């Protein structure tokens, strides 16, 4: 539905990709780990490889958790917008269709802070 307004109400979106200096936003949440209270927001070049995302960006953000080092990335489940997503580690974000403001969820079965979801 459209905004109820006095005039033709059209304004540009505030957060389009062109405003991020060649980068894109990507959100990543690690399920069952509330040490990180909310999913995290990252700003990355679309040319980053998925492996760099995991090894550098996510490891910096989530590495404080003792379970991060225990993750076997061959057994994790990724969701993109809630749907199963199989990333290719050698491909870039752009190459595997990860768009500006896409949201990924990382599920690591067996790891959930020993049942505390911390």
């Amino acid at each position, binding site marked *: *539905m*459209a*905004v*109820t*307004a*006095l005039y033709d*109400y*059209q*304004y*540009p*979106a*505030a*957060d*389009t990709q062109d*405003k*991020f*200096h060649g*980068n894109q*936003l990507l*959100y990543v*949440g690690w*399920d*069952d780990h*509330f*040490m*990180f*209270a*909310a*999913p*995290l*927001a*990252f*700003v990355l070049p679309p040319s980053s490889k998925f492996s760099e995302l995991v090894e550098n960006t996510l490891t*910096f*953000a989530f590495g*404080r958790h003792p379970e991060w080092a225990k993750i076997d990335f061959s057994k994790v489940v990724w969701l993109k*917008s*809630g749907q199963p997503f199989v990333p290719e580690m050698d491909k870039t974000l752009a190459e595997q269709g990860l*768009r*500006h*403001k*896409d*949201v990924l*969820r990382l599920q690591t079965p067996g790891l*959930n*802070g020993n049942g*505390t*979801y*911390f």
Partner: protein
Amino acid sequence: MDMKATKKKLGLKEKYAHMTRGLDWETTYQPKEKVFPQATFEGIKVHDWDKWEDPFRLTMDSYWKYQAEKERKLYAVLDAFAQNNGHLGITDARYLSAIKLFLTGISPLEYVAHRGFAAAGRNFPGVGPRVACLMQSIDEVRHAQTQIHALSNYNKFYEGFHAGASHQIERLWYLSVPKSFFDDAFSAGPFEWMIAIGFSFEYVLTNLLFVPFMSGAAYNGDMATVTFGFSAQSDEARHMTLGLECIKFMLEQDPDNLPIVQKWIDKWAWRGIRVLSLVSTMLDYMLPKRVMSWKEAWEIYFEQNGGALFNDLAKYGIKVPECIAQCTIDKEHQSHQLWLTLCTHSHAMGLHTWLPNAEEMDWLSAKYPNTFDKYYRPRFDQLRELADKGERFYANTLPMLCQVCQIPMLFTEPDDPTKICYRESEFQGEKYHTCSDGCKHIFDDEPEKYIQAWLPVHQVYMGNCWPEGTDPTAEGFNPLAKYLEWCHIDLARDGGDYEGSSDQANFAAWRGAATQNT
């Protein structure tokens, strides 16, 4: 020569008629719809503005008199507070985090409310609501001023009180929550404003803000705030009546107004409840001496009192807001989820947080038997364990925010408190994320509005949140430090854990000097 009075003073009724209804006039050289362009576009149909019942029958001359009298009393008490070291009378300096949140998050909104009611008064063609809105507008600016004055004494002694209204409300990530709430209301038409602020915020939710806040102040020895509260109380009663009168007026004027009003009630109940989730942390975590739990406050002030209100409105066809089922679930969780978030982000805040101690966690267990021990105590235990090792945990990456309420995406699925609730919409090829069905519904109804949201996390990533002249490519550039500088926060003094803060050290030293000889 003395003037001879030819006539007795006006009777109350006459005076009232002259000073409210008598102030109206008919336009002559411009059609009325051009003078009041905002009166119709929202779709609310009004056939007879004279049917407006003035709820308080207050005229401007009596208004000045009452307000001046209250002002004299308030400032006398504030003087006494300052002269008698009132800043040492509080239970513990931790209490001040609640007050800082109020001063930085709520007081600036009083000022926006002042502007909003002035605009609503200008835009209503009916003289009755115009006069009432004028008075409320003046009340609101007075509240902003008196809150700032009442709390300014703390600014002489404690950290974090220095820049709330001047800089932080437009810059700090957690203050964008209340700010965007009022921006949303102010940018709507006058009728929606009245439902948003006049009815939902000032009537349905006001007790959840003021009663816990004022009782909290009384329980924790904060006489300045208690006095402000008493001073504002009669205004608040008038505001509540205005909000209620306005909704009844809209519903009585035309049956076509019902679905519009219901939509606004649904929207603004949810918007207001999301904003007030910040208050839930005050009741459950910030007050050293607790008044009641958030859940108890919710049950008394919303479920019971609000339930009676909606029973009353049922005769117009109004239904209880659709978000209530979600709220009934959330009341067990939201304060804990939010405080855990604040505790792990207070390295980027202008107030202190702390991990609850053993006695406080027992209180929480007793108040939240269904959820605290099961979900939240283990998380606090693990944060405590890290803190005791000298590794107090703060998140090093910015959180994802909800596009509508602007709170980090910390809330969980209605049917599973261990899963974050993700909702997503697409508009004009762009993705937008929301924290709940309530916020998604609001986004989807008016996406054109919310795509403009100033989301602090995105703004930081765009590079818009540094002091002028900052070079983000310079060696050793620290984005968090520059962001805090831009927010006028000195992290060593204003933020981080209360343990080891200067507020803690100063309070202990000054209290000590007041009660001991060495």
